[in-house]
């Protein structure tokens, strides 16, 4: 853990009103896309948590992940780690400290590793980068420890190239790399979308073990509702940059409230013969044009759309122990402007 994690607020990571704007097109005629808008959530220091973020491709999931990893800085709002705003982090030492606390796990294990380098070489390098001044032997011990935590050992992966390992071993090795610096948060962006169904379970089980044994909080970004239900404690549904529903995983996925969450839960396939109705319906999936809508971004395909939804973005309201951004549950009389 970083040295500055000893004292400070109860919140490990606190994201408040984060916003990121991308500009498309020319200087004069360009359009703005707000990829992430008014997103707030926090992870507590003393209760490790698996926080799932569910959304379709192009919903802002990855932009949010990049902001948490400090690869992008938010245009508005704050992201604080141990009470320190990312904007105020300057200088190599401070950046290294931040990176040590927040580590990424990537989507495709085959692309994570340099095909020309041995896997253990890459892990050793990570250990020596984060623990300068330690001996080679100490670095090796750290690598061995990290590999053991993910169910591998140096004797298995030592001296081998990425193509000599299976996809499952590689994904484990890339998780081992992420835990070498002893992070308090892992950001896993679609870690299982490229792997087989049988392997998928071994990876998500591993996340659960890391949470329970190392006390690491995990931000699990995915579009797979079933595994999110399986491992996570809290969940947020992201749609075109907004968290449309967030709260307890079990409650949200079994009794969804926001129309978009309902659509997602209905679309998730039940692994039971004939478990999901596959009646052919009107196309409801939409492209990026939804980003340009004023008001609620889901209005164009919402079955309960009202006039108000097209004019004004719904503010978050608390319903049944969760936050929902939908006028069906109130929020209409909110005085303060939403933008």
């Amino acid at each position, binding site marked *: 853990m970083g040295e500055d994690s000893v004292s400070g607020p109860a919140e490990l990571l606190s994201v408040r009103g984060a916003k990121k704007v991308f500009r498309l097109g020319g200087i004069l005629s360009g359009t703005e896309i707000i990829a992430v808008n008014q997103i707030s959530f926090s992870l507590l220091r003393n209760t490790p948590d698996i926080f799932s973020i569910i959304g*379709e*491709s192009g919903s802002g999931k990855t932009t949010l992940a990049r902001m948490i990893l400090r690869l992008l800085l938010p245009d508005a709002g704050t992201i604080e780690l141990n009470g320190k705003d990312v904007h105020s982090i300057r200088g190599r030492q401070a950046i290294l400290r931040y990176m040590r606390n927040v580590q990424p796990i990537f989507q495709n294990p085959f692309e994570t590793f340099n095909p020309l380098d041995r896997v253990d070489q890459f892990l050793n390098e990570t250990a020596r980068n984060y623990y300068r001044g330690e001996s080679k032997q100490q670095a090796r011990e750290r690598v061995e420890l990290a590999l053991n935590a993910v169910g591998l050992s140096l004797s298995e992966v030592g001296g081998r190239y990425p193509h000599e390992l*299976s*996809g*499952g*071993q590689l994904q484990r090795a890339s998780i081992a790399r992420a835990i070498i610096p002893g992070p308090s948060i892992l950001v896993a962006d679609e870690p299982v*979308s*490229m792997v*087989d*169904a*049988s*392997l*998928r*379970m*071994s990876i*998500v*089980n591993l996340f659960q073990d890391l949470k329970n044994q190392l006390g690491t909080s995990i931000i699990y970004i995915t*579009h*797979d*509702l*079933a*595994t999110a*239900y*399986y491992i996570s404690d809290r969940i947020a549904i992201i749609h075109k940059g907004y968290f449309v529903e967030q709260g307890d995983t*079990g409650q949200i*996925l*079994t009794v969804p409230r926001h129309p978009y969450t309902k*659509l*997602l*839960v*209905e*679309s*998730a*396939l*039940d*692994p*039971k*013969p*004939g*478990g*999901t109705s*596959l*009646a*052919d*319906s*009107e*196309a*409801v*999936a*939409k*492209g990026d*044009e939804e980003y340009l809508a004023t008001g609620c971004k889901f209005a164009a395909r919402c079955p309960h759309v009202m006039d108000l939804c097209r004019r004004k973005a719904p503010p978050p309201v608390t319903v049944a122990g969760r936050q929902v951004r939908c006028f069906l549950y109130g929020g209409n009389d909110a005085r303060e402007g939403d933008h």
Partner: protein
Amino acid sequence: MTTEVLRTNALRASYVTHLYGMDREVRVVEDVSLSMRRNEVFGIAGESGCGKTTLLKLVAGFCRPPLFVQSGSVEFVGERGNVLSLLEASPDELYGIRWRQISYIMQGSMNVLNPVRKVYKSFLDFAYPHMGRMTEREFRMVVIDHLGKLRLGREVLNSFPHELSGGMRQRVTIGLATICKPSIIIADEPTTALDVVIQRETLGLMKRIQEELSLTIVLVTHDLAVHANMADRIAIMYAGTIVEEGLTTDIFEQPAHPYTRHLIGSLPRIGDKERRGFLKGAPPNLAAPPSGCRFHPRCPIAVPQCAVEVPTLKPCAGGTKAACFLAE
């Protein structure tokens, strides 16, 4: 009465390479006999690297070095009962069958359309040569009519792929594969890595088209949740061999092979947080496959016999056929 439309008989195939004087043989398809019937969705499930895609290539009559067929055959049964052996057919015969009788929906089908050609041009490139005697004007009418069935307007024809949403592109690719009214569609991981909403839309559309045109869909994916909802019959593949085969309901209710049991038992479901197990070890290297039953090194119930003898498919009490000595 359902009849056969495609079958493989004891098919064995391998990739053979000669490199620096070293011969290497990777046996990817081992003694596979399958029979696909008219008007059904036939699912093939298995992890990556188990030979699913190679089997599909052979089923489509596509066999080029370094892939060689050792023995067995793939036979296509025409509507009048004429049998064509796909692995021995001449290029002209294959050309006559492709797209008209056997077409494909490719993996990552959202991105298979040519990005610099309008959708109509893609139809011209892919399907027009296979439509027989037909003027371009007539062809255009057929395409518009067909896309209408897929709930796509005629304005789609003049769009570039990037102007369409992901769901619309999926519909266009399904339209391309079905415009010649083939008897078989081969779908290789058609919805893998798609978002849940588009996935259900795509599967729903494939199912409706399959029922309307009475086609056979050979659906290959590792995702058993897709098979559960789409397939009429499933074959489970492990390391190049078929380990279990049967009706979807039987496979899900009473799986007989330990590998099938593992696959079904490990599926996550909303509403069920019970810890799922996973298989130890890695998929076998097909250049040096394990002796006997190829699953025995990872099998939780293996007995000494499994390492020596190769089990064959036999009928089990649950209604499926499984290749396991311990299945009953």
